[in-house]
Structure formats: structure tokens, C-alpha cells
């Protein structure tokens, strides 16, 4: 059980650290690479939750497909660096960061110190629902209609992306 705690601590430290790097890097390419690192750490955390299918999908779809799309767009646009962040610190940004951490403290207070009781994990059940078999059975029976709706969303997104990115609108 000790190994699980070490794994979770390391992965969450990587996740928070890379999230900070994503929002502070000057170059968008570095941000994308740190975001990929963040997604890999998140996939590891999904594994500690026994959600194998979601972990694999996280790597294939997010780190593999969506982030490559981001990289392609950044390289297509040939963006220059934004300039050092510290030169552009304004009172508005300081207020935004302060309010953000205020909200975080509220979250932590509500989640951790409100005396709320949290359920214990039933490991066998968690493993059962996290496998490809468990997900597939649910997805193609109970959640068949939402699953079909996602195909419509994807078609709409493909058509929309092609039309928006066309050089000239007729």
C-alpha cells in the first residue's frame, strides 16, 4: 500500500508542476510539451483509480491526437514568443492570481475540512467497471444514445473545422 501512496504523490507533483509550467512558459511549444507531460501523469493517476480504459484513451486521444493538433497549429502559424511574463505583470493579473488561489483555498476547505464523509473504495468493483469489457458493456447498452450523439458531434466538428479553415468563404 505504501507504493501506491508514493506513486500518487509523485504523479500529482508532476501534474501540478507541469500545469504551472503550461501557464507560465513564454513559448507555446513548450506549453504544449508540458501539457503532454501533464496528460501522461493524469493517465498514471487514472491507473491508481483502476480506470485502465480511460487511462489508455487519455494517452491515445489527448496526448496523441489533440496535442499533435495543437503542435501543428502552432508550427503552422509560426508564432513568436510572447515576451517575458514578468514584464507584463499588472494589477489585474495579480488580482486574478490572488482570487484564483482564494477559490482554491475555499475548495480545499470545503472538500477536506467540512466533516463530510467520503465513501471507501470497493477495489473489485472499481476494477470491474474500469476494464474495456466493463466500459464497452455499459457504453453499448445503457449509454447507447449518448454514444450515437457523439458521432453527430464529431461530424459537426469536422464540417465546421473544414469550413472555418478554408482559405476563402464563398
Amino acid at each position, binding site marked *: *500500500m505504501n507504493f*501506491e501512496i508514493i506513486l*500518487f504523490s509523485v504523479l500529482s507533483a508532476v*501534474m*501540478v508542476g507541469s*500545469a504551472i509550467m*503550461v*501557464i507560465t512558459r513564454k513559448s*507555446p511549444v513548450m*506549453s504544449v510539451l508540458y*501539457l503532454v507531460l*501533464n496528460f501522461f501523469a*493524469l493517465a498514471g*493517476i*487514472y491507473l491508481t*483509480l483502476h*480506470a485502465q480504459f*480511460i487511462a489508455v*484513451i487519455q494517452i491515445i*486521444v*489527448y496526448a496523441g*491526437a*489533440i496535442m499533435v*493538433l*495543437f503542435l501543428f*497549429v502552432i508550427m503552422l*502559424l509560426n*508564432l513568436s514568443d*510572447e515576451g517575458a511574463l514578468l514584464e507584463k505583470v499588472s494589477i489585474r493579473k495579480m488580482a*486574478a*492570481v490572488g482570487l*484564483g*488561489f482564494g*477559490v*482554491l483555498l475555499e*475548495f*480545499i476547505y470545503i*472538500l*477536506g475540512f467540512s466533516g463530510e464523509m*467520503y465513501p471507501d*473504495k470497493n477495489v473489485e468493483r*472499481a476494477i470491474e*467497471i474500469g476494464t474495456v469489457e*466493463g*466500459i464497452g458493456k*455499459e*457504453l453499448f447498452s*445503457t449509454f447507447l444514445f*449518448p454514444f450515437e450523439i*457523439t458521432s453527430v*458531434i*464529431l461530424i*459537426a*466538428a469536422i464540417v*465546421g*473545422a*473544414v469550413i*472555418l*479553415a478554408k*482559405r476563402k468563404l464563398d
Partner: protein
Amino acid sequence: MIDLQYYLFLSATVFVLGVIGVVTRRNAIIVFMSIELMLNSVNLTLVAFSSFLGDSTGQMLVFLVMTVAAAEAAVGLAIIIALFRNKQTVNIDEINILKW
């Protein structure tokens, strides 16, 4: 075993970092990446609850969120490309045609 609230702490932290990124950064692509961070932290909450409550609905919702995130990234990046073609910038402070 790690308790549920540690997953929720982690998720809240990443979500707040995403919010700070959206509010403070001016590069549209980095704003997009911060939105992805927020979507992922919510996914983590859903998977954590799904796993702890023994209910697979949360993981189904994560599946749908990922689909919507992929669609959103495709359409959003197409919009950014179209904007860049017209204004030669992705700085969201300079894209203010809709501002009165």
C-alpha cells in the same frame, strides 16, 4: 489506499491553475490549453467518484467529455487559424471586433 479527498484536492488545484491560465495569458492557443487543463481536472473528479462509488456513469461521462474536447479543439484551432489569417495575431487583446 488513497482517500477520495486527495484526488479532489489535486483536481481542484489543477482546475484553479487552468482558470489562472485563462484569465492571465493573452495568447489564444495557451488559453485553449488552459481550458484543456480544466476539462482534464473535471475528468479526474468524475473518474475518482466513479471508482469510489462503484458506478460506471462517471467514466461514460469522461468518454463524452473527451469527445467534446476533441471537437472543441478542432473547431477552436480552425477559428484561431482563420483569425490569424485576417489579423496576423493570436493575441486576444487585439481581437476585439465584438467589443463595443
